């Protein structure tokens, strides 16, 4: 049992040679940092697929009528795009990549509570992804229901729904296991002296997220299972022909999928809450308020699912209840925005790439969130529901929010993860193209939605043409920025300057260990004294 002392503490996790070599030393490693990178590379691959599908859709929509594909392909493309992006990228994204990498280090632990389970979650994730992808490659045609799998269409269509639905179910399971692991880790493995009120904000958001993963995911699990049973045996639960209620399917789907949007955004907010103080060199403004708002979002976010169903035929009572709850959940988000901005007040701000990404995050998040208010009000939602306005809302907030935060985070923690600096000039160039392209891509969709263009439309009337052209052009600019950013990161991981342990003068624990961190993070578990804290500059 003396094995632990055999691990040399001066070897970082990238160079460490364990029992296995090569690829095996990665896919069999239980080191949380290696698992994080496993997730990152698998997600990157899937993400590229999703991006290409997105671009294909935009290209199709550049003009009315057929451009590059037929309606069946278009329907399949947005379904697979949505499924990949939601279930495989943004829901597991930040927790699985940055949570895995940083959570143990930030709370002063050597690993997560159940390292083997952690590796197992990755395998489950891959299994789910493979299942979904297999539905594209084999069988009677790519699923074409949209990522929402609404009944009864999802069991009427002749396409290959079973593997896709089951894959989504499996992916949910992976996300449950990760959440479980994180909660136990945070409860049990905090460094001595690190009380709950000294827990950095990113772990706090992971904690909130993990609870939603745990409590919401099973509901969609069972729902998707029932849809599969329905397709296989016709048990009748959601089939109106057999007395089932398709609206009940929507309830169950959104009971998960609304909280899921907070699974996506909370860790993103957490990363921003780390980045803003570091680059302002200032204690975060309103630590308690940010923590409370995190928990409040997680909690209230559980009860607002009905705002996706305002036209589905709920009772009036349910409609205005959900509307008012939706408005309440906007308040904690507002609190966070105010606190971030106040953190900059009287700070000493250094303009680095992660900070640019973080500020643009706040900007696009505000647009996305505020457009959410338009959707939350009854009269206006009835008008814009299922139009391009909704598409603009969620791209601004899902991909604007989570995507921008992801890039802020990857630049911020890049030196820690790979021990090298990225090239600053290229990173900034990438950002500016991305940002401008992003606005050009999605802002026109708000306009289209207000004009009344429905979503999931392969073809459209002439009056929607000009805005669509602008949007397609924007998608190219943004992709250009994305390509620069990604290439720059890949190159820098190999040839960038060697990075110091703490390039940004951050105060959380991950900056106290060498870059890249050694295999077990800490030689000696740090101990927090009374005056220590994550943001004491």
């Amino acid at each position, binding site marked *: 049992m003396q094995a632990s002392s055999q691990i040399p503490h001066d070897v970082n996790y990238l160079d460490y040679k364990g029992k296995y070599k090569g690829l095996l030393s990665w896919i069999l490693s239980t080191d949380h940092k290696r698992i994080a990178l496993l997730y990152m590379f698998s997600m990157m691959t899937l993400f590229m697929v999703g991006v290409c599908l997105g671009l294909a859709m935009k290209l199709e929509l550049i003009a009315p009528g057929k451009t590059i594909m037929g309606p069946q392909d278009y329907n399949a493309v947005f379904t697979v795009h949505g499924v990949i992006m939601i279930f495989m990228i943004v829901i597991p994204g930040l927790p699985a990549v940055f949570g895995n990498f940083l959570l143990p280090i930030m709370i002063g632990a050597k690993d997560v509570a159940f390292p083997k389970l952690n590796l197992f979650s990755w395998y489950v994730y891959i299994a789910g992804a493979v299942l979904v992808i297999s539905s594209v490659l084999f069988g009677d045609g790519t699923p074409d229901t949209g990522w929402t799998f609404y009944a009864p269409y999802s069991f009427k269509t002749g396409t290959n729904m079973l593997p896709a639905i089951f894959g989504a179910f499996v992916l949910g399971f992976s996300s449950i296991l990760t959440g479980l692991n994180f909660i136990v880790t945070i409860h049990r493995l905090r460094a001595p002296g690190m009380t709950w009120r000294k827990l950095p904000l990113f772990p706090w958001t992971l904690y909130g997220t993990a609870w939603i993963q745990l409590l919401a995911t099973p509901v969609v699990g069972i729902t998707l299972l029932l849809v599969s049973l329905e397709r296989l045996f016709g048990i009748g639960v959601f089939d109106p022909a057999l007395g089932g209620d398709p609206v009940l399917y929507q309830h169950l789907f959104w*009971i998960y999928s609304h909280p899921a949007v907070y699974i996506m955004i909370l860790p993103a907010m957490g990363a921003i809450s780390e980045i803003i103080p570091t680059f302002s060199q200032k204690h975060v403004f309103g630590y308690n308020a940010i923590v409370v708002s995190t928990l409040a979002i997680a909690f209230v976010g559980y009860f607002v699912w009905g705002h996706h169903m305002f036209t589905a035929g709920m*009772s*009036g009572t*349910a409609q205005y*209840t959900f509307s008012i709850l939706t408005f309440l959940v906007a308040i904690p988000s507002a609190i966070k925005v105010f606190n971030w901005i106040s953190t900059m007040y009287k700070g000493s701000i250094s303009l680095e790439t992660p900070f640019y990404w973080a500020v643009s995050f706040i900007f696009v998040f505000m647009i996305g969130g505020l457009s959410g208010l338009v959707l939350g009000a009854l009269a206006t939602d009835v008008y814009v529901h299922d139009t391009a306005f909704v598409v603009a809302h969620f791209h601004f907030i899902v991909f604007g929010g989570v995507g921008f935060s992801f890039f802020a985070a990857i630049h911020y923690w890049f030196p820690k993860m790979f021990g090298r600096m990225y090239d600053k000039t290229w990173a900034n160039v990438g950002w500016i193209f991305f940002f401008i392209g992003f606005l050009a891509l999605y802002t026109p969709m708000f306009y289209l939605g207000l004009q009344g263009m429905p979503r999931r439309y392969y073809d459209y009337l002439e009056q929607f043409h000009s805005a669509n052209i602008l949007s397609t052009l924007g998608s190219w600019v943004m992709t250009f920025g994305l390509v620069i950013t990604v290439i720059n990161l890949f190159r820098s991981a190999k040839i960038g300057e060697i990075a110091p342990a703490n390039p940004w003068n951050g105060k959380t624990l991950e900056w106290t260990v060498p870059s890249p961190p050694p295999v077990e993070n800490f030689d000696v578990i740090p101990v927090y004294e009374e005056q220590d804290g994550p943001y004491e500059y």
Partner: protein
Amino acid sequence: MENEKHHIVPYRTYFYILAALLVFTLLSIEVTSIELGGLTVAAALLFASLKSFLVLTYFMHLKFDKPYIRIMVVFVLMIFLAVIIITFFDYFFR
């Protein structure tokens, strides 16, 4: 270090609990065979809740564990209840 000594529950306690559970089961069978209309559902659910309370506190050791687990359980059940109630805002008022 952490492995605090467990509270060892005597067999006797478990036996009593089982007896209580069986009694509740019988009672619920009896009650539901009388015609009570809408109350039948309520009665059956009441007994089920009593039974699950016993299982949770004794068989599942909540009584002897640290309080935060109990808090978590209560919290989860509350969330679940709230979800059902809010769902019924739709069906009840349709």
